[in-house]
């Protein structure tokens, strides 16, 4: 068998990083240190996933392991550098993180109605430690993903968003994370906690991008507790540089009659992975997970979803779309688990992929695991290409080949944008049309842009 992680070259830098980040948490309650220690022990016991690990079969992480990442240095930015990443016209609360640390001066944390709080994790721990204790690093404690453990051990900072009972936020909350660094490979670990108490409602917008084109590894973990009858909508836009390694995990627990939705646009990174795991823990709980991934060049993008229907009368919907071109590779694995006695589960999943190049590859694995009998579950997966008849039709209307293909590809993706808040939709549309060959011409064709 392979060497234990402790004896591998990658071990030491991570161990040093663990000790170094430990200092950031000196003021935190003792249980934080205990949980970090526990997470570190878990990570160092298994190390990076091996290709034999079924969950990582198509996504080798050896490139991350073999790069000597150092914890990203604290970097101060000016507002001008951050502004381009705040969607035009966005006036809601913003928490800006740079290299894994909160930048209060660039953020807009105040101005929330009473009963709603957005603060950095460190302040939250100082103010309300007993309030965080049941959830922080607990919701995702059972994740067997090694990067969940790594995040638990190395997280430097994060946001804490809490909504008291019945509080409804009309404006979305933006969590922005930027990684800056050009010369040495750096890494940042971020951990957010969202607690939506009974009957509350909030829309979260997470955006992450790179400043410069340095090699960096960003590991984000977001824990979301959706209380009884609460509703949390999570939107994410991942636009890291093509040399970045963004890995993210989203873990939500939904109580009775609660509703959780996520919509993830994954566009950047040379190796990007999104793990979404939702636990439907109360009857009447529901979730909707959607996403769009776009990969070209040498990109590798991976999406893993898992939904646990744990109690009777829960429902879930998933629609993921993928566009893969160049020499890129896209991986999708969606697992739906219906536990014993979780009757009346209603689960639907769809994964549609557009394979645009002979060098590209798509691997998709939808999974249904069902231990109850009174259920309605289905999944569908397709891999295909553009309809040549439609391309011909558009060309007969005067578009050139590239523009026709861009227009059709855009139309394929458009479904994933519908219903997203307008500023996100515009940002996504712009990125798509910029990345697709012929996109400029297609944009003219669509007039509205």
């Amino acid at each position, binding site marked *: 068998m392979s060497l234990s992680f402790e004896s591998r070259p990658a071990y030491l830098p991570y161990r040093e990083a663990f000790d170094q980040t430990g200092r950031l948490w000196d003021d935190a309650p003792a249980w934080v240190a205990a949980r970090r220690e526990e997470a570190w022990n878990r990570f160092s016991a298994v190390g990076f996933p091996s290709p034999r690990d079924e969950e990582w079969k198509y996504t080798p992480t050896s490139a991350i392991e073999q790069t000597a990442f150092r914890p990203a240095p604290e970097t101060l930015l000016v507002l001008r550098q951050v502004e381009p990443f705040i969607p035009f016209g966005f006036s809601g609360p913003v928490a800006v993180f740079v290299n894994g640390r909160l930048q209060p001066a660039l953020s807009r944390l105040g101005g929330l109605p009473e009963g709603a709080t957005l603060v950095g994790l460190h302040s939250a721990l100082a103010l309300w430690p007993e309030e965080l204790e049941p959830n922080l690093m607990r919701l995702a404690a059972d994740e067997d993903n090694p990067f969940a453990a790594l995040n638990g051990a190395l997280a430097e900072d994060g946001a804490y968003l809490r909504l008291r009972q019945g509080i409804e936020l009309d404006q979305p909350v933006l969590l922005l994370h930027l990684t800056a660094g050009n010369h040495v490979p750096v890494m940042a670990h971020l951990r957010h906690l969202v607690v939506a108490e009974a009957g509350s409602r909030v829309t979260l917008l997470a955006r992450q991008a790179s400043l410069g084109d340095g090699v960096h590894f960003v590991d984000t973990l977001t824990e979301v507790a959706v209380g009884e009858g609460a509703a949390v909508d999570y939107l994410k836009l991942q636009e890291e540089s093509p040399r970045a390694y963004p890995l993210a995990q989203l873990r939500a627990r939904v109580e009775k009659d609660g509703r959780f939705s996520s919509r993830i646009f994954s566009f950047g990174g040379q190796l990007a992975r999104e793990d979404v795991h939702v636990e439907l823990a109360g009857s009447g709980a529901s979730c909707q997970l959607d996403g769009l991934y776009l990969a070209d060049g040498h990109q590798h993008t991976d999406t893993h979803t898992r939904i646990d229907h744990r109690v009777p009368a829960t429902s879930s919907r998933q629609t993921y779309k993928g566009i893969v071109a160049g020499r890129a590779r896209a991986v999708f694995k969606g697992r739906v688990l219906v536990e014993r006695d979780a009757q009346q589960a209603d689960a639907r999943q769809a994964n549609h992929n557009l394979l645009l190049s002979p060098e590209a590859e798509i*691997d998709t694995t939808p999974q249904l695991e069902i231990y109850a*009998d009174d259920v309605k579950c289905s999944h569908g997966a397709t891999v295909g290409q553009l309809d040549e008849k439609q391309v011909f039709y558009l060309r007969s209307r005067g578009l050139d080949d590239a523009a026709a293909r861009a227009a059709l590809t855009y139309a394929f993706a458009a479904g994933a944008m519908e219903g997203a808040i307008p500023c996100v939709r515009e940002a996504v549309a712009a990125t798509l049309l910029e990345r697709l060959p012929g996109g400029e011409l297609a944009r003219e064709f669509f007039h509205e842009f």
Partner: protein
Amino acid sequence: MSDSVQQVEQLVGQEYRWGFVSPVEADTVPKGLDEDVIRLISAKKQEPDFLLQWRLDAYRHWLGLAEPHWSSAHYAPIDYQDIIYYSAPKTQDRPKSLDEVDPELLRTYDKLGIPLKEQELLAGVAVDAVFDSVSVATTFKAQLKKLGIIFCSFSEAVREHPDLVRQYLGSVVPPGDNFFATLNSAVFSDGSFVYVPKGVRCPMELSTYFRINARATGQFERTLIVADEGATVSYLEGCTAPMRDEHQLHAAVVELVALEGATIKYSTVQNWYPGDKEGKGGIYNFVTKRGDCRGANSKISWTQVETGSAITWKYPSVILRGDNSVGEFYSVALANHFQQADTGTKMVHIGRNTRSTILSKGISAGHGSNAYRGLVKVLKSAHGARNYTQCDSLLMGDRCAAHTFPVIEVKNPAAGVEHEASTSKIGEDQLFYCKQRGIAEEDAVSMIVNGFCKEVFKELPMEFAVEAQKLLQVSLEGAIG
């Protein structure tokens, strides 16, 4: 009404009908496995040296392999030294006609519902019956011989057509393919061999009936079917085993080779002993089945009805190498009581414009667990490849489980792959409708299940389709209520 009640009672009273032991004297080798046992098997079968070496190479390779455990099946460890690897009914010489066959054996087949004589006369089906490890009698051989079709036991093929065997044996499932296939390569006892020459359409369905009889024997048969250019053949395989408490291992290998323009249709009704209601006993059915569409425009079609075995673990696959070749997989798998079925297929698209269709129907009842596990792989060379997959699961009872694990890997942008799966409970409204029309619940269930499986049954040859429906009905009894 009272008729149907009686029928239900009769059905409910019906246990595994095929659980009898035939008191036939058997020629067995001692328990356990080492090189000497393999040499002994090979010697008993008077095999040429190349085959002995082939077996020994496989055995040596097997020693270095670990038993796989990635399936969702749970079972107690298998002691490979506690298995008798060879058991043959003792007969003085090979019988020349059915009249010379041990009457006890023939009675066994009668009980199984395949009276050889009757079949020879009426059904027009050529049966190569495998009784434990040696092929007992092969019917209709003369008729087939006229067309140049070789249909005989594997041992006979080794003796009489060594070149053909040598050319094709292990060419689809190499001896080192996987743990159980390697074990089979080392110890396989007998099986069927079919060769259909160029341009010949086999005029009748070929059929083998496998049956495990002697206690503590494993059945390691090996089937090889070769359809030469433009040939067509349809092959049926049915299996039953006596009722016993301990588990028995069945590790078979089936290899199909379709050359240019050839068509092979392979149908299985698998009804090995599934164990009793408490999950005691039953066959471990760990089988490697693979077809190779070697030539352009060839076609391989698998149809299976899996109602038996404590654990079924098999994935009949097709390698679509030839351009325009076609692969099909139609399956009904039933898991009742404590049965576990982990089955599915692999379609590997290599040639241009290759097409595959997968239709899988899983039924879980009682504590049964049913998993579809499949792979559709489109390689870069498979321009214009198409696949359509549909997997449906039907659930009966709140302690059963149904899983779907399809894997799709596509490397060609001109390929189209579609996968659909659904899992649902047996329709309450359909049941209600039937009951409201005076149809007893058991009958209604059986009717709905048959409807659910219809698309697969219609791929089966007629006599098999009828048997499959009956089997399903019997296997499902007690699943409702």
